[in-house]
Structures are given as C-alpha cells and as structure tokens.
C-alpha cells in the first residue's frame, strides 16, 4: 500500500533493534547443536543428539501432545465462548457493554503468578487440579480476553449492510449469522485461533500451578527439566518450536493470509 521506499535510517534502526531482539535466540541456535552435556557457549563439540533426545524422551513427547491437544481444545472453546460474547458486546448495544468488556479483559491485567495462585486455591477443592478439564479452564481465563478483543474488532469492522442485505433477502437471524457473518469474519477467526493457540501452547506459569503427577504440558516439562538439568535439550526444543511456528505460519499465510489480519 505504502509504495514509498523505506528510508535507510529506518532500515538501520530496525535492523539494530532486530539484532537486539533476536540476540539470545542467535546464541541458542548454536547451543542447540551442542554435543556437550551442559549448555555453554560456544559449545565444545557439535552434534544433533539433543534433537534426537527430545524424541527419545517419552515424558517430553507426552507433554508435547498434551500441550497440543490442550491448545486445540482451548482454542475451540475460546472461539465457541468468545464469539457469542463478542457478538453481544459489539452488536447488541447493551448499556454496560464498555464495563463488561473491561471486566472480561481484566484477567489479562493480573500477573499470571497471582492469577495462578488464586486459581489454584479455588480449583483445588473442585478437584480440577492435575486434570485436563482444569487446565482447559485455567487457560480459558487468559485466552478468552484475547479472543473477545480480536473477535470484537473483527465484528465491528464488518460491513453491516451485507448482513442487512441477507435479512432483506429473507434470511432469519441465525441463518444470517452462520451463512454471512461467520464466513466474512474468517480472517478474524483465524487470527483469534492463532493467538489463542499460541497463548495456550506457551503458557507456563498457570500450568505450573495446574499440572499434576499424571499430566504435564510441554512448557512445564521444559521448565522442570531446565530447573535442574542444564543440558542443551531445552535449547533444541526452543529452536524446534520457533522453526515449527515459522513453517506453520508461513504455510497458513500462503493459504489463508494470516498475518495480514493478525494485527490490523
């Protein structure tokens, strides 16, 4: 859209800041190919054994799949709960919509450690600790505010006349919603899904409080691992996650145009 060439000054400034932003990652990449038993830079020997170690570690693999399933479920539930809420907040012009929408965003403003402790105290008597349902519920507390925010924006940006056109053509409200509103929100839905998935998949602090002996998520497993063992496997996992995300996002972007709508 902006066809003016980016000025060299901006390029230099942005480049320098990018170096700063990615500095730790740039060091982690070589560490992940270390052949040593400890994380150290530069490594004394090289190998890909720590990548192999990830797949040979059943606890880690198990945690990965738990995280994956969790992120999928949390994403779906976030959409299912967030969509009606966004619709009500944006479209029904309630008197207290502003206040409600702030209330629903409030969990984001609570330090996750506080939130984790607080949720722990409440969930424990409910028998939700260490259960998949409990994890889902805890993650929803943080993903829903994101979902409602993004979906609200997406809804507010939809051209209303299109929905009105459908209703004058004889479509009942629910039909309008499913046949017109929802398909038009596609990019908003994709962004929301991506965001919720990432937030859930990366969540450590809440999960630390919520995981139990029989159930752990990848970030928690990594956290525990790295708390006590300084081997480069954690670096390998980090690098693998970044690469995986990059591949997924690029593929998704090529197919449905994710980042165009990611941040608007």
């Amino acid at each position, binding site marked *: 859209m902006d066809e003016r060439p980016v000025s060299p000054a901006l390029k230099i400034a942005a480049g320098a800041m990018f170096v700063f932003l990615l500095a*730790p990652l740039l060091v*982690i990449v070589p560490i992940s190919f270390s052949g040593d038993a400890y994380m150290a830079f530069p490594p004394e020997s090289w190998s890909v054994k720590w990548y192999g170690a990830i797949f040979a570690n059943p606890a880690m693999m198990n945690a990965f799949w738990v995280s994956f399933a969790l992120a999928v479920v949390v994403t779906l539930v976030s959409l299912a709960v967030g969509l009606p809420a966004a619709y009500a907040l944006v479209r029904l012009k309630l008197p207290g919509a502003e206040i409600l929408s702030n209330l629903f965003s409030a969990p984001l403003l609570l330090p996750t450690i506080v939130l984790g*402790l607080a949720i722990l105290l409440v969930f424990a008597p409910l028998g939700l600790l260490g259960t998949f349902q409990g994890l889902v519920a805890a993650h929803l*507390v943080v993903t829903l505010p994101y979902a409602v925010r993004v979906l609200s924006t997406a809804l507010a940006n939809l051209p209303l006349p299109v929905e009105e056109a459908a209703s004058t053509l004889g479509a009942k409200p629910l039909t309008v919603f499913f046949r017109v509103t929802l398909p038009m929100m596609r990019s908003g839905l994709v962004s929301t899904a991506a965001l919720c998935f990432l937030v859930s998949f990366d969540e450590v602090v809440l999960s630390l409080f919520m995981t139990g002996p029989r159930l752990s998520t990848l970030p928690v497993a990594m956290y525990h691992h790295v708390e006590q063992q300084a081997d480069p496997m954690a670096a390998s996992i980090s690098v693998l*996650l970044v690469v995986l*995300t990059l591949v997924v996002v690029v593929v998704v972007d090529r197919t449905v145009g994710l980042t165009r709508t990611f941040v608007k």
Partner: protein
Amino acid sequence: MSALVLSASAPRRLGALGTASLLLAPIALVNAIGFLWPVVNLLRMSFRESTATGALTDVFSLATWSATLQDSFTLDLIASSVGVSLFITLLTLLASYPIALYLHRSSGLWRTVLMVLVVAPLLTSAVVRTYGWIAILSDRGLVANALMALGMAEPPRLMFNLTGVIIGLTEILMPYMILALLSGFGRLDPRLEEAALTLGATPLKTFWRVVVPLTAPGMALGSLLCFVLAISSFVTPKLLGGGRVFLLATEIYDQAIVTLNWPLAAALSMIVLVVFGAALVLYSRALRHIA
C-alpha cells in the same frame, strides 16, 4: 442499529437483554470462576494469619496488612518496581518503534517471516533465553570480550544485577510492544506523510510532527501493556537479577513459592492490582488527552 438483526427475531420471547444475557452467560461463568472468585478468595487469604513456622491458620486478622504497609521494605519495593517498570517500558518503546514502523511498511512473505521472528522470543523457554544472555552479557561474554578488545580494562557488569534485568525484560517485552504499536499504526495513512513532505517538511520533521503524534495511541496502549507485564514479571528478574533485584512480582513469587507465606503473597498481589488500577486510570487520561 444492527441489534435488530438478532433482536428482531426474539422480540417477544427474550428481548435484546435476554438474548445478550444468553450469549454472555458462558464467558461470565468463566470470568466468575476463573477471575472474580479467585481474586476475592485471594483477598480473603491476605487476612489469614500464619504461624512462625510458616503454617497457615484459620484465624483472620489485619496482621499481614499492617506489617506489610508499615514495612519500609514493602514501600521501597513498590517504589522501585514502579520506577524500574516505567524505565523498562520507555526502553521497550524506543527499541520497538523502529521495528514496528518497518513491519508496517513491509509486506508479503517477508513481513510474515519477520512477524514470526518478532514473536520468536516468546517461544523460547525463559531459562534457555537466559543462557543466551549469559553467553552475551556475562563477564566472559561476547559484549565483554568486544569491549575489552576495544581497550576497556574492566567492562561493566551487565547481568546478575539490575542492568541485566532491564536488558532481559526489555527484550522479552518487545514482542508485545511491537504488536500493540502495529495495531495503532492503522491511523498512519501514508497520504498524511506525503502531505507533510509536499508542504516542505523534511523526513525527520515529518516523523516528529506527523508520524509520532498519529501513532501516540498505539504507543499508549503498548506502554500500558508493557508496564503491566514488566511489573508482574518474575521469571526474568529472578534469572537475570542474580538474587539482587527485588521487585513486587519476585517477592510475591518468593512468598508464595519459597517461603510459603500465602497471606503476604496475597496482600502483595492486591497491592499490584491497585497499582494496575492507577496505571489504567492514567492510561485512559492519557488517551483522552491524545484523542
């Protein structure tokens, strides 16, 4: 206006309010169970007493609160947490702005890849990232070596102190700031910059007089977000602070996880909430001023 589309269907049976309640019920439930109730519960916890050995009793009193609020350490903690967080917010803003602006002006696959790289730090474990920083900032790290090569006899301590915390937090908060800035760059119509140029403004003037004011709402949003995240972060300060840096969040962590003084942790959490309330009020003031 559009309420019609939905409410028209159920004018007699439910009414707009009824429909809204139905739609909002699930999120309200999650919010109540996952937020309101826990917070109220936490408030309650802050009034419970604990014994000298750390055991939690069922006695309620103001003991924790009066001790906390009279302790100069707590007050210092609040002051330094707010101060450090503000400083980090400012640094993050300065570091993120060029990247956000560059991303705003780029497009296509290149932009997509850069976007992922921007969020990449969030995908790496904090401890692993700290190892990265050790390699760069420690006394034998890349920066120190470079400085010594340049002739500096004793390079400054860059980590395991406040400097390290500031560097580490700035870096980890940048993704959030960049995303917030980008969301605020929508108002930045390239036509406006062109208008300024044709009116004789140099690129630098155009930047200060047009670009910066127009992106101010995005900066305000990003700053609020970063302030909140900075003041509530504890992993990075613990890892890079070398046990020397005390902030509200690390203290909450210590009290909640190490010392197990839950009433104190709860009371400190409540203080953080109050600070956030103040930040929010300031933010909306600032926003009104900008708009």
